[in-house]
């Protein structure tokens, strides 16, 4: 029996409950709505909520514990020597049992006990599903019936329904907090485990990054070095190149849009420029790897320079193109926020437009522009797909933009994509990197938002 069928049935029951609750409230007063405390539909809604919510909560709990309870029962039925296996071996056995029960072919030959366990598992699962079905539906029906019975004409149905809705609204707004807490906890726990194996100082100040760890303890020469400095240097190099591309172009186009462009030109050019912000980053990555990187490499060969085919330059330039619209739209906002009186004053003294812009508007808008640039920097630091597709993999401590460097996000992706075990320093390192990334971008954002907000207040 599918869970979705159950949910659809519950929804159907809820609409029935709504109908009966509403009807009962009306029959109680003989159709004279005025005698009821609330409108009839509120009685209906109240009944529907009683019918649906407890059953859905039960469903959620049941589904989250079903697997572990059933697995426990299957383990008990297994022979003693299997039960005494170390936990990770036992997990493998259980996995085989699960696959077998779903009819998937397992690589090893199927023996009698495994088949029995799989059958046991299947039957327990189907019993559990049936039980869930019966229990959830009866809870829904009983709670709905009870709610419908207890409707009286003085019952404050509207207030109760509104309280429930209010609770939903409140809990929705706290979800953002839970997300942040979830991010911090999930990244922090794994990072702590990483720092138990690798000292924090080595991670933060080590100059060498080579996360290859030995799979067997007796293997030679691959102990793994986790110094993150080259990664952050690479990230900074690419970010710097991106900013060198994005800031002048973005700022100048914002100035032109705000001060020179005719209305017609503005309505035409602005959305086209903003298309750059809407293009998925994987497209930029493809563009960088397919077109820009070979272009730079060929250009380098023509003038006698060796440019790596995964140069920091290509990734940085393409990232800069991606960031242009952020810089330009943020600067556009702050430039437009500069009051007209300041421009008029400057024109009145005989300054030309460009002089006004350079000497009056830019200084006045500077905090806002700086805030916008900081936001763009944090975006560049956290950007993943462009660097994954266009930057290198080997950690390389260099300031030469023609060489390949690697970045923090590239390493997170390469460490976590593919087969992984969650207790090796190699995979845990990704979480430590993510923690630092999170902290850095968060700090940059806080500073940027603070600057932008503080500046805005001056003219309001």
């Amino acid at each position, binding site marked *: 029996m599918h869970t979705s069928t159950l949910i659809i049935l519950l929804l159907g029951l809820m609409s029935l409950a709504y109908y009966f609750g509403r009807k009962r409230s009306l029959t109680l007063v003989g159709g004279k709505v005025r005698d009821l405390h609330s409108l009839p539909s509120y009685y209906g809604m109240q009944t529907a909520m009683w019918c649906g919510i407890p059953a859905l909560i039960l469903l959620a709990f049941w589904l989250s514990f079903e697997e572990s309870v059933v697995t426990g029962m299957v383990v008990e039925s297994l022979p003693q020597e299997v039960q005494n296996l170390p936990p990770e071996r036992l997990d493998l056995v259980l996995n085989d049992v699960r696959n077998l029960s779903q009819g998937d072919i397992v690589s090893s030959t199927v023996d009698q006990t495994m088949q029995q366990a799989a059958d046991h598992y299947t039957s327990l699962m189907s019993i559990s599903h049936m039980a869930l079905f019966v229990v959830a539906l009866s809870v829904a029906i009983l709670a709905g019936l009870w709610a419908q019975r207890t409707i009286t004409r003085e019952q404050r149905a509207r207030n109760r329904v*509104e309280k429930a809705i209010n609770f939903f609204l409140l809990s929705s707004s706290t979800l953002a907090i839970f*997300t942040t807490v979830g991010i911090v906890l999930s990244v922090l726990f794994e990072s702590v485990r990483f720092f138990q194996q690798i000292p924090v100082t080595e991670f933060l100040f080590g100059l060498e990054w080579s996360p290859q760890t030995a799979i067997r303890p007796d293997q030679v020469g691959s102990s793994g070095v986790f110094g993150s400095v080259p990664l952050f240097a690479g990230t900074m190099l690419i970010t710097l190149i991106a900013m060198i591309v994005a800031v002048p172009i973005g700022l100048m186009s914002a100035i*032109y849009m705000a001060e*020179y462009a005719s209305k017609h030109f503005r309505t035409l050019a602005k959305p086209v420029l903003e298309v750059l912000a*809407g293009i998925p980053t994987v497209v930029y990555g493809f563009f960088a790897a397919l077109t820009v990187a070979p272009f730079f490499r060929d250009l380098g060969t023509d003038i006698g320079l060796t440019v790596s085919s995964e140069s920091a330059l290509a990734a940085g330039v393409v990232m800069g193109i991606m960031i242009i619209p952020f810089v330009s739209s943020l600067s556009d906002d702050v430039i437009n926020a500069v009051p007209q009186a300041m421009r008029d004053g400057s024109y009145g003294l005989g300054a030309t437009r460009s002089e006004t812009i350079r000497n009056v508007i830019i200084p006045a808008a500077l905090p806002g522009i700086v805030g916008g640039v900081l936001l763009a920097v944090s975006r560049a630091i956290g950007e993943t797909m462009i660097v994954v597709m266009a930057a290198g993999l080997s950690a390389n401590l260099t300031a030469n933009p023609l060489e390949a460097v690697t970045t923090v*996000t590239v390493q997170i992706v390469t460490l976590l994509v593919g087969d992984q075990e969650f207790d090796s320093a190699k995979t845990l390192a990704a979480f430590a990197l993510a923690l630092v990334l*999170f902290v850095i971008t968060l700090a940059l*954002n806080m500073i940027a938002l603070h600057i932008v907000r503080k500046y805005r207040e001056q003219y309001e």
Partner: protein
Amino acid sequence: MNNQQQQHKKTMDRVQKGLDRRYRQERHFKWLGLGAIMLGLVFVSFLFITIISNGYTAFQQTYVKLDVFYDPEMIAPIGETDPELLSRANYGGLIKASMRQMFPDVTNRREKKVLYGLISSGATYEIRDAVMNNPELIGTKQEVWVVADDDFDMLIKGHIDLRLPESDRRIKDNQLAWIHDLQEQDRVEKRFNTTFFTAGDSREPELSGIKGAAYGSFFTLLICLTLAFPVGVAAAVYLEEFAPKNRWTDIIEVNINNLAAVPSIVFGLLGLAVFINFFGLPRSVPLVGGLVLALMTLPTIIIASRAALKSVPPSIREAALGVGASPMQTITHHVVPLALPGMLTGTIIGMAQALGETAPLLMIGMVAFIVDVPGSVMDPSAVLPVQIYLWADSPERAFVERTSAAIMILLAFLISMNLLAVWLRKKFERRW
């Protein structure tokens, strides 16, 4: 007097000179601004031109005409038409036989293998399906159009540089001669590439399509929308209409602004740690992808919805409260319906972002190679941007055009979503 006049003239000269300089600067500055915008526009057009010129050929596919003799010896040796047996017959052999017949002078074993390589391995299944659907074909000889191999296809589309020395090309000289023969006999044709829209991923470029990824994207966005929209709107309503101004709501506000700027890959790690490692949900499924993307788009939706709620004038609230509506009734009957277009616009833009998002999905294992088209939110699947990433990594030249074509499809979706948002805003925009 004369002296004074001279002085005056000197000053005027200097001012004039300075003016020239200043006007020049003014012009330069203006050109600089215009140049910056033009550069931006050049980037946009260059990007689109690159993608389209690389990708438009993927909508066509080369087909080869073969004279296939449905040899009863090979398909149904004892006149058996049992579907079980029919489905396992040697259809590859039929194609090989027909190729041998066309090029009788190819006898070398290795050359034969190269010759058979001109036809895609998918052709076997085409022939099988034809026989399965119509067993009466057995024993007859038919002209059949089958899919050509990707290298053949690339050559026909002119993507293989024939000026290179033979050892540097994927298509060798003997293959060229055969293809030339086939063309002479009018056996080669380019047709609209339906496979691209009806198939899932494949290792063979000519058999790969975007249907699986498109379905995966659809399911992922469905989960994302059903979670993020109600929760986002509810959070916005609470913060804008009910929340008391205190420390707690301040924290929530700052939090939402910060979440909007957290790098997307960090959300992927959250999904990996919480949904996959803690709750034990399977990898690579749209359900987990949708959950992660929902958490990511939530701040966008909340911020847009709050702006929409803010723009509803207080007089409407006061009027509703004045005729005796409860605060909740005021919100649900009057304020939210009026703010809904704005909320929808924000949601569509958030969904468009989610549609193009790749990095967090890599973290939850959506990079697996999946051939089947997913049927539900619990089936392993790829999504469009991840499909693009995977194809971009493939070494075959033919995948370059598929990647570009998939990008074109993705961009078409994104642009139409954004246009929808603009249209909604235009249609429902109200000045109070």
